[in-house]
């Protein structure tokens, strides 16, 4: 009994620490003037306004930013799904020369920190190919996600071999097998992979920050960061506007996660990282 109280106490304390900043983000975005006293966390209705959202929208184009984030994220998800599924299927189901070497490569690539490649990638993509301020330039480094390849492989491995042998005897080609037999059976994996890959580009800051200088091309994370580091000080309620922007940036990812959280399970993520 006592231990159960302790367990729930620890979890509640933890949950508070994790959720309070989000609550405070929303409260701050709705306050006419920032009230940083303890009472300010529970604001009086007369101190509430939507002005901060108008203010931030006046400085950075929120809709354009959201659209750019959406295109960037959508492109990454498309590449990850199509080519990740193909590679995952080849690694799990097909027997071909170089298969184990390819899988070793997939695991190795996951450990290479992307940021370490930023200078050569910047030179290649922005300078040599002239792809700065373009969606293609933003998407390219993330187009296929190695972690997703591992997740797909894990799922395809769990399908019974007999299933494939039977379909092959019936004369089905590999593309048909993949599309009509394997894919429908691993639908949850697709959703998990979409969720995991969504988080990456939607939240990515460094790479689009490097290659987008044109404000109309910047994903929301980049334009909000520019607002925080350079423009915020010149607004009447800088923290209010920052919070409003933060809410707009956080909302889509948090909402998607809340809706699909049951697909976000420890086993998928664990297998994705452990290989």
């Amino acid at each position: 009994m006592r231990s159960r109280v302790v367990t729930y106490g620890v979890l509640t304390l933890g949950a508070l620490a994790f959720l309070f900043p989000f609550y405070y983000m929303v409260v701050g975005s709705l306050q006419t003037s920032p009230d940083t006293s303890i009472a300010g966390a529970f604001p009086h209705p007369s101190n509430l306004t939507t002005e901060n959202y108008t203010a931030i929208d006046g400085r950075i184009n929120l809709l354009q930013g959201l659209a750019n984030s959406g295109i960037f994220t959508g492109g990454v998800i498309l590449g990850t799904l199509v080519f990740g599924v193909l590679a995952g299927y080849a690694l799990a189901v097909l027997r071909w020369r170089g298969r184990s070497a390819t899988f070793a490569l997939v695991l190795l690539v996951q450990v290479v920190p992307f940021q370490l490649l930023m200078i050569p990638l910047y030179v290649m993509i922005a300078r040599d190919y002239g792809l700065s301020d373009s969606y293609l330039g933003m998407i390219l480094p993330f187009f296929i996600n190695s972690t997703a390849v591992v997740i797909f492989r894990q799922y395809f491995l769990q399908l019974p071999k007999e299933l494939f042998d039977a379909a092959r005897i019936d004369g089905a080609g590999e593309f048909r097998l993949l599309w009509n037999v394997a894919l429908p059976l691993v639908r949850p994996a697709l959703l998990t992979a979409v969720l995991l890959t969504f988080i990456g580009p939607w939240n990515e800051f460094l790479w689009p920050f490097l290659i987008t200088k044109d404000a109309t091309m910047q994903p929301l994370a980049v334009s909000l960061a520019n607002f925080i580091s350079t423009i915020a000080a010149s607004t009447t309620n800088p923290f209010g506007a920052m919070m409003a922007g933060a809410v707009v940036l956080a909302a889509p990812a948090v909402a998607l996660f809340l809706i699909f959280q049951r697909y976000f399970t420890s086993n998928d993520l664990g297998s994705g990282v452990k290989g």
Partner: protein
Amino acid sequence: MDAGTKRRRPFGAQPLGILFSAPYLIFVGVVFAYPVIFAVWMSFHDYFFTAPGAQVDRPFVGLDNYVTALTDPDVWRAFGNVGIFLIINVPLTVVLSILLATALDRVVRARTFFRVAFYVPYVTASVAVVAVWLFLFSNTGLINNVLGPLAPNPSWLVNSALAMPTIALFVTWKGLGFYILLYLAALQNVQKELYESVAMDGGGRLRQFFSVTVPGVRPATFLVVLLATITGANLFTEPYLLTSGGGPNGASTSPVLLIYQKGIEQQNPDVAAAIGVVLIIFVLVIALLQRRFVGREES
């Protein structure tokens, strides 16, 4: 299969696998292998930005870029800052995530609520939560209001002794949900009978935790330590935004932030590439040390 018609198959039984994997392999070649080689080449040459297609000489300069990088006190400071970051972030991450995962594993009621609460910071953009932390930890922010006379002076993010620890705390909080998830998966592999046998020997909850749970999740701990180290080596967004570019006076500059400043702001991509190579070696050395350390405890 059809053993009678055994043919030579130079590409394996199902060579289509090569075709299916080809886009991935090309991608890895273009986006990982080539840039890594290019970065190393760049670090040994006098490389500077030119107009696209311009024919220029980029002479081999040996270790010059490395000498420039390693005689720069800012570079040493940045690596020292990662050290401070790791000393705070790694133990805090390991202890808090084992603790919360164990607690989460034990409860039945409101399990989904707690899970969701812990993962929300992990799925949210750094830029968005950085904004809230700036608000909470500013000079006149809520944290200082709660602390009253105990509030640090100068305040958290402009204090050279506290800027890096505050960043480490932020990153720990932000990523903890992911590590809790890893530990939850690891806990499924711990044999339940072990708890019972410790209980039979008169061991309490605490004994069970230290003699069964902690050793049982050791592989996960190794992974968590490794991933946390990689996160530390990749630190950029947090010092860039939380401490306005690694301030005060470089107290929270990270190597990646320095690579950005040297390479792109100051237009010295060759020196920046050299710092990148040093950083890769730094990560590899730490990973090897950790493997040795964790491995020895295991045996």
